[in-house]
């Protein structure tokens, strides 16, 4: 199909874009990379009266260092996760995970902030935002506010963004610690206690298995203080199975997603230990 009629704006400044959204409360859609919005328009699942294309607002296209972490502007493409040296140095997990985001032909246009704002429950970037404790900067004509990933993601395709706001920046803080749309996905991090060779810190965030990315703290607790061995991983995997909230849909059943999440837990933890031993 083809998109329904809309008024098209491509402002040159953020102020203009925000003013437009403010005037057309709830009637406008922001077009950044367009890799999710354009399919919705083509299929007429979305029929906004106005489309605000932010691609001409050059000031939003950046990846910068900030207090040991990085900040990424609304127009930075997903490919930059693979090409930007700053990402490789400071957030290697983002560089590694970028490989799993769709395909090179999509990452050339798709933006990092756009994927986070779209909040597809099976997308990688929202899960990475949660795992890395990202802070989202939400801008409107009235000002800006900052929202942490824990409260930003609310449900299927639903975030803390109001109709007159643009996600202008995502901030990935300096990491104190350290994975096609997924049937189930995981972002896992482990830190070992330097003396006793037991697990000191663990982070287990799952995606594609609930309305938002889900951090399963019970599964993390099953690892802390344990030797980084199969028995502990098995306990975490079983706990994760219970701590997620998968749906039945055309792609996979609830039971299958739970099983995949458990298997991924084992694999991710083994991979994490392998990496720790190499370093």
């Amino acid at each position: 199909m083809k998109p329904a009629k809309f008024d098209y704006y491509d402002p040159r400044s953020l102020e203009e874009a925000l003013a437009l959204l403010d005037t057309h409360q709830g009637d406008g859609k922001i077009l950044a990379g367009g890799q999710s919005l354009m399919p919705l328009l083509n299929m007429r699942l979305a029929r906004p009266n106005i489309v605000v294309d932010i691609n001409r607002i050059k000031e939003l296209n950046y990846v910068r260092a900030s207090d040991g972490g990085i900040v990424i502007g609304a127009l930075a493409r997903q490919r930059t996760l693979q090409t930007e040296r700053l990402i490789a140095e400071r957030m290697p997990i983002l560089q590694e995970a970028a490989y799993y985001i769709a395909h090179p032909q999509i990452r050339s246009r798709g933006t990092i902030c756009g994927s986070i704002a779209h909040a597809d429950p099976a997308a990688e970037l929202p899960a990475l935002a949660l795992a890395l404790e990202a802070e989202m900067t939400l801008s409107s004509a009235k000002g800006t506010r900052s929202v942490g990933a824990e409260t930003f993601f609310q449900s299927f395709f639903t975030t803390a963004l109001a109709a007159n706001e643009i996600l202008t920046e995502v901030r990935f803080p300096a990491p104190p610690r350290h994975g096609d749309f997924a049937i189930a996905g995981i972002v896992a991090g482990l830190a070992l206690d330097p003396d006793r060779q037991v697990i000191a810190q663990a982070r287990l965030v799952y995606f594609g298995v609930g309305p938002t990315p889900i951090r399963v703290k019970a599964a993390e607790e099953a690892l802390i203080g344990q030797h980084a061995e199969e028995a502990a991983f098995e306990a975490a995997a079983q706990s994760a199975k219970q701590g997620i909230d998968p749906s039945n849909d055309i792609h996979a059943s609830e039971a299958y997603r739970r099983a995949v999440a458990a298997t991924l837990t084992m694999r991710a933890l083994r991979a994490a230990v392998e990496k720790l031993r190499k370093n």
Partner: protein
Amino acid sequence: MATSRTVKLRVNGVEHEQTVEARKTLVDFLREDVGLTGTNVGCEHGVCGACTILMNGEAVRSCIMLAAQADGAELMTVEGLAKPGGELHPIQESFREKHGLQCGFCTPGFLMTTYELLRKHPDADEEEIKEWLSGHLCRCTGYQDILESVKLAASRLRRT
């Protein structure tokens, strides 16, 4: 504000300036307004890869971009590969020799992705080639021959 827009862009080195409806996708613009029908329209939601073209040197889906967004851009479509006299590009030659196509519907997209891949990564190994080709569907199940075609094209382009 406008429901239509004048766009000025270059396609395969030729400048075009036309007024289009704001809602018109780039692929429809290329086919209907510019008259270049080599780029195919497949799924219209970015999955199949048939509409892949190069925009400022990068492979993009032209079905999930608006023509208005390409204002000022440099585009390359499958028509830009062969020489004006009709001599095929080494990538096209390789696809022909290795039977990298059957019905040919997906082929323009595969060719354009291959073009960017081999320009930026002339020494791409099999894993890299597969990663780039993963953004395309071929329903005649020709993937193995497509892979061989890209490998052959890579070796030829490295020699030139």
